[in-house]
């Protein structure tokens, strides 16, 4: 193993992204003896403190300080990385909105292989790297073999690599800024528009009736609402329901929506894409209802019902209403 391993770490307000520990763990999978190098780009005091915070977990932290990088622009970061990455490097990047922006183009510019959204690393044998990916929204997985003789960029699925307990190291910050030179991009950041709050705050609900594509049409949202009303719960949803404009964006659970932490989560007609599951925290009890018995949601749910939600939910609602009327 001669290829040097790097981890590109996003940071915000002086704090390194949680991905740092996951990327370090993935680097150890590639090479147990590896001492991966972190790379951070940015500007000012925020960059300094993020770099120093990583010295406890990386032997070397490469710093790229540039005024143009005060806001993380993938095209500029790419241009900087092209200048400083040694030939044949392996670069690990989180597969998030920044990684998706950066990685494919970077792999072209440094003429290395690219594997996207890696969920596991099996083995590195010489220049042949074996990893696991998923296809069809997680319904099937694939073993992928990659020729890394001219290096590789790997984007890693957030949450797929468990951070390892490791002995603390005393890393050093290496300033690479002067190697970068001037930076200009064809895309310029203007502002961030914060998502609007909705009528119901799904992040504070102990019970969520959550609907996905399986709800089939807008009128059927009422079926979920009736169940939620009977339970004293709220209705949330997955991305396709928002894309179809059946529910407001403020009801969406997932990476591009809200992070929720209910006690009970009824996933109704939701396939279970990782972007959706990433929005579920606090280990809720998940009851999944889906027509497709192979839906990935059944791999993570506690209890599964292979049935059509349009039949099952109304029955459930009527039984709860009946129960309540007896109780009163």
């Amino acid at each position, binding site marked *: 193993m001669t290829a040097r391993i790097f981890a590109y770490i996003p940071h915000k307000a002086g704090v390194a992204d949680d991905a740092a520990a996951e990327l370090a763990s993935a680097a150890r999978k590639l090479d147990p003896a590896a001492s991966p190098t972190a790379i951070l780009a940015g500007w000012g005091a925020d960059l300094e403190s993020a770099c120093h915070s990583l010295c406890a977990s990386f032997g070397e932290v490469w710093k790229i300080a540039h005024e143009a990088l005060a806001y993380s622009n993938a*095209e500029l970061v790419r241009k900087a990385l092209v200048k400083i990455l040694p030939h044949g490097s392996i670069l690990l990047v989180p597969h998030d*909105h920044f990684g*998706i*922006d950066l990685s*494919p*183009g970077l792999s072209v510019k440094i003429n290395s*292989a*690219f594997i*996207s*959204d890696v969920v596991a690393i099996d083995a590195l044998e010489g220049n042949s790297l*074996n990893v696991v990916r*998923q*296809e*069809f*929204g997680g*319904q*099937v*997985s*694939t*073993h*992928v*073999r*990659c*020729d*890394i003789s001219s290096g590789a960029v790997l984007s890693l699925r957030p949450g797929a690599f468990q951070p390892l307990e490791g002995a603390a190291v005393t890393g050093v910050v290496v300033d690479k800024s002067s190697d970068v030179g001037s930076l200009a991009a*064809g*895309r310029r*950041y*203007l*502002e*961030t528009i914060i*998502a609007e709050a909705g009528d119901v705050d799904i992040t504070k609900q102990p*019970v969520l009736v959550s609907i996905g*594509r399986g709800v089939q049409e807008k009128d059927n949202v009422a079926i979920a609402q009736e169940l939620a009303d009977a*339970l*004293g719960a709220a209705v949330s949803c997955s*991305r*396709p329901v928002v894309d*179809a404009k059946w529910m407001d964006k403020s009801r*969406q659970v997932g990476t*591009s*929506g*809200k992070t929720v932490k209910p*006690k*009970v989560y009824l996933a109704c007609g939701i396939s279970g894409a990782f972007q959706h599951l990433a929005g579920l925290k606090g280990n809720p*009890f998940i*009851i*999944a209802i889906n027509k497709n*018995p192979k839906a990935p949601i059944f*791999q*993570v749910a*506690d*209890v599964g*019902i292979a*049935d059509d939600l349009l*039949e*099952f939910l109304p*029955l459930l609602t009527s*039984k*709860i209403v009946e129960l309540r009327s007896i109780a009163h």
Partner: protein
Amino acid sequence: MEILVCAKRVPDTSENEIALNSTATDIERDDLVYSVNEWDNYAVEEAIQIVARVGGSVTVATVGGEDDEEILRREMAMGANHGVLISDDAFAGSDARGLATILKAFVQKGNYDLILTGVQAEAGGAQVGGMLAAMLDYPFASLVNSIEVLEGRKLKIGREIEGGNREMSEIDLPCVLSIQTGINEPRYVGMRGIRQVASVKIPVFGASELGIDAVAVGERAAKVKRVDYFVPALGKGAEMLQGSREEMADKVIELVKTKGGLR
């Protein structure tokens, strides 16, 4: 504005259960329902809407074989002006880099101001658009969920970032954008519309027309190769309830009560 949309025909996951074939070298493709990749369909709709506002034309291109023509016709029925099939035996087995190489050669034969792709297709790679942009030295943005045409060969775009927030940027033309679902509401395409374009001749471009060196694409050039498919044995999996619908509903109520979900 001359807009190129790169589209792909894929098995429709909302219509199919995906299973492995007997040798696990592929998914079982018999009896699958295919359609245009969902993300690409939003990209075509966006292109049509931009052209309706500022003029120009929409070309939809796909890399594939004869079977893939159907999505070009579908997108033309939607309102795209041209469909192009990029097809050659030498392209078979290309990885994302190979696909981007093929598309780059096609783009350079034309004069496009804006190139759109879907964010990702069935394999979830989210990579061809970014690679194509880098090869062309065009600016790129992924996960785009709004486009506004500005004066002076620029666009104002929104990107979907974490928590439903949107990152707004200005981007110079020509550029490549990967389009996120939900950016618009793709129009319905009826059988009548499809029939109207059924006899339109779809031009086909191969490696020689595009000046593509066959060793730069296809299976032999691919650095990234799928070895096999498998269904992961993940964790313990859900306890699947059995019995009648009534019995399952009673069990769910009992569980929800136990977990404190019935107040």
